[in-house]
């Protein structure tokens, strides 16, 4: 308590020097009381002052300590006011008030006194800053801080961390801190520390164990090696899960791209080669929406779901009325004519917008990733697209199974003549089905805009794969499309690591060609009369 008289005398001096108003303000703010002890020549006393700041739990502690560490925390010679220097260049430095962090104009460097620190204090400050976040109110921030400490613990931090562990309520934070300490113990050569680390997937833990496994102490090396083998096994599992995730993600994109194709295929009996360009239109709609609503990428993306559907559906109706209706019963000609349409649409986008790719912003709530454990994190945008694909699939299932339109579509697909005889207006069904299939392509485009570049070739890149999905899954069968799309996506991702992306694609294509041998009409062929169509 020898500090107190000094503090009081200091305060007295201050009052005398700068007058009462400032003193009154300073007394109001506990921060002033925390900072004032720093204005001393004794490093030992400064150290105590730093301790006091840390223990105060003041929200501004971090900024103070950082400023102190960087030599930016300075004291006005005359008024005793603490300021943080923003930029120490030139004669007059812009400063902010150290208590309110509001702009305090400029001060001449002659008026300011730097709070100097020595190496011991610097070490204390660095340790303190590392531990400081462990006192944060939010559990998430404390976990973040604890994770950052892994591998960064030195002898000076052991004691503060122990103190934190004792007072910590969150088990996860405690576990991470124990691990951080264990890494430190491992580095010191303590074999028992391995037990605390086994099973962790953290990269720091692994590098520490790796280093330990090469140590000269045989006991330590053996323990570390076996722990590493354990971890490796877990990692393999994680990698498998990650591949599965990427495969499902790619598959969901394929499903989205192919499902509209499957719907229209059933009704028109031919393939719509312009389907890829309808996907492209959906993607460009997202881009256009974001141009219309600058600064609100999330809202624009949500709005572009209906907009993309409508734009593509409209284009689909135009294609159906303008071209396809004249080619009924001539599937190969339909294929050629729609290919012509796809060329025109591509070139249209190149001429009107640009041949260059356009970038679509990913809204904040879709970026980042979901961390399942330390070795496995799922990127959010892919997760959203996967969910979106499933929702679209379910919605289409409902439409086809539970609505009048679905019933009519299925009737026309199975037997056009008979359906018409039963009073179904086949032409109307054609238009609606085509609009539906094209609209779903638009939705696929909206989803794809979050995963890849939006450019004139976007549709082309996916069209052959979507054909393969339809061929693989069987025409006119939504379940077939889902299963085929997801499995092709997974197969592709599983093959990729050991075959390379291009070879994986070739293998998949060859696989489908061979698959057609066994099941010429896909995984889920249509049965009965429809099969002979």
């Amino acid at each position, binding site marked *: 308590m020898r500090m107190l008289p000094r503090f009081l005398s200091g305060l007295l001096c201050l009052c005398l020097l700068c007058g009462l108003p400032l003193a009154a303000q300073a007394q109001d703010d506990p921060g002033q009381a925390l900072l004032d002890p720093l204005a001393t020549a004794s490093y030992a006393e400064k150290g105590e002052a730093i301790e006091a700041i840390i223990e105060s739990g003041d929200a501004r502690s971090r900024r103070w300590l950082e400023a102190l560490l960087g030599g930016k925390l300075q004291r006005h010679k005359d008024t005793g006011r603490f300021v943080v220097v923003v930029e120490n260049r030139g004669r007059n430095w812009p400063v902010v008030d150290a208590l309110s962090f509001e702009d305090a104009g400029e001060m001449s460097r002659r008026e300011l006194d730097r709070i100097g620190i020595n190496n011991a204090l610097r070490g204390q400050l660095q340790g303190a800053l590392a531990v400081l976040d462990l006192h944060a109110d939010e559990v998430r921030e404390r976990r973040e801080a604890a994770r950052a400490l892994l591998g960064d613990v030195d002898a000076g931090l052991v004691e503060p961390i122990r103190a934190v562990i004792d007072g910590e309520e969150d088990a996860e934070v405690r576990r991470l801190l124990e691990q951080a300490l264990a890494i430190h113990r491992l580095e010191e050569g303590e074999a028992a520390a391995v037990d605390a680390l086994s099973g962790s997937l953290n990269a720091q833990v692994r590098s520490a164990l790796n280093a330990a496994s090469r140590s000269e102490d045989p006991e330590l090396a053996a323990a570390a090696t076996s722990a590493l083998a354990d971890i490796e096994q877990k990692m393999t599992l994680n990698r498998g899960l990650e591949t599965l995730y990427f495969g499902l993600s790619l598959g969901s994109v394929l499903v989205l791209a192919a499902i509209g194709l499957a719907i229209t295929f059933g009704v028109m*009996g031919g393939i719509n080669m312009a389907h890829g360009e309808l996907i492209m239109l959906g993607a460009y709609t997202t881009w256009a929406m974001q141009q219309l609503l600058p600064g609100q990428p999330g809202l624009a993306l949500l709005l572009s779901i209906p907009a993309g559907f409508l734009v593509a559906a409209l284009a689909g109706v135009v294609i159906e009325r303008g071209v396809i209706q004249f080619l009924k019963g001539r599937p190969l000609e339909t294929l050629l004519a729609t290919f012509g349409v796809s*060329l025109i649409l591509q070139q249209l986008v190149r001429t009107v917008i640009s041949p260059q790719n356009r970038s679509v912003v990913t809204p904040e709530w879709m970026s980042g990733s979901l961390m399942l454990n330390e070795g496995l994190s799922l990127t959010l945008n892919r997760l959203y697209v996967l969910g979106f694909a499933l929702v679209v699939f379910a919605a289409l299932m409902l439409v086809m199974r539970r609505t009048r339109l679905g019933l009519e579509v299925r009737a026309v697909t199975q037997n056009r003549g008979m359906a018409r005889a039963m009073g179904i207006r086949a032409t109307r069904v054609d238009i609606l089905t085509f609009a539906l299939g094209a609209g779903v392509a638009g939705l696929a485009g909206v989803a794809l805009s979050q995963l890849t570049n939006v450019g004139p070739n976007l549709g082309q890149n996916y069209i*052959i794969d979507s054909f393969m999905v339809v061929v693989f899954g069987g025409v006119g069968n939504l379940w077939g499309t889902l299963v085929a799309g997801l499995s092709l996506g997974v197969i592709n991702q599983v093959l990729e690591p050991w075959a390379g992306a291009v070879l994986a694609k070739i293998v998949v*294509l060859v696989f489908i060609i061979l698959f*057609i*041998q066994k099941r*010429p009409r896909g995984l889920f062929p249509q049965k009965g009369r429809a099969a002979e169509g």
Partner: protein
Amino acid sequence: MWLTRPFRERATRLFLGILLAALALVTLLNLAVPAGHPLHVSTYTVTLLGKYLSYALLAVAVDLVWGYLGILSLGHGAFFALGGYAMGMYLMRQIGDRGTYGDPVLPDFMVFLDWDSLPWYWLGFDMAWFAFLMVLLAPGLLALVFGFLAFRSRVTGVYLSIITQAMTFALMLAFFRNEMGFGGNNGLTDFRELLGFDLRSDATRLGLFLATGIALALGYVLCRAIVASKLGRVSVACRDAEARTRFLGYRVERFQLFVFVVSAMLAGLAGALYVPQVGIINPSEFSPIFSIEVVLWVALGGRATLYGAVIGALLVNYAKTVFTGVMPDAWLFALGGMFVLVTVFLPKGIAGLLRLRPWRRAGTSQPTAGEAAT
């Protein structure tokens, strides 16, 4: 004698007459008329025409399977490119030690990639007879395997089209890889001589043009002969009513396979004639869009006529040369528009407008009528 039967047809005699007359005229205008004269045909134009003629041969091959067998192949570019690569490999080996790196055996790109020896599939390509055999065998073999697998399991119609497209797409991806040993992205180029003739000399170029024209004439006669034979009649029956033909006791897949393989070999030949004239072969010839463009030539000219395919190939490629020179952006619009207009308004193509329809006389049905029934 089935090979001479085509000569009895008026359409064939007319076609051959026009083709040979055109060949003679171009030769005459190139050789006899001095450069600078308005009627002079430059060597550049001769090579361009030679390129068109090789395309025309490819179109005839496509028409053979599409027009008379009802198989819309979207992968004939693959056979064309394979023939081209076989020729390209021969031409690469002919360069010898005159390449940039001066290696007597390895082509430049292999030296560049640090390969120390020739891959096994390059062996033998220094011999002309072997290379020319492979021009026919490589595409023929691919067509045989692919066709065997496809026709045996009765993959037809749109399915088959998509699968052929996947085939050429897969090959394109494969040939883009450097590890394949076919020059990757850049393909094979910098050719010097063919059978000892300098590829850059005017005489060789004229010779290549004439050779392509004669190959086209022979290919045309061969296709006509096949079509007019009994085998051709069965093919048409397969096209119009596959199930019925099968019930009549014909092994449909065998007819399909035979015609498909012949067509692939013709396409390979076309590719082999194309490569020395343009001086390069690269994986872009495998691209699906090229194959589907070939189908447009046939559709525009009129399918199931053979001469229509030639007309279509010449017209579209001439238009392409003009368009890409004058306004390159408009070409894809024009091409796309042609696809739509031809299929909607000109189902029988230009040949339909000419009203020269030999199948009427042969007594078979019209090409599109049968399709609607299946």
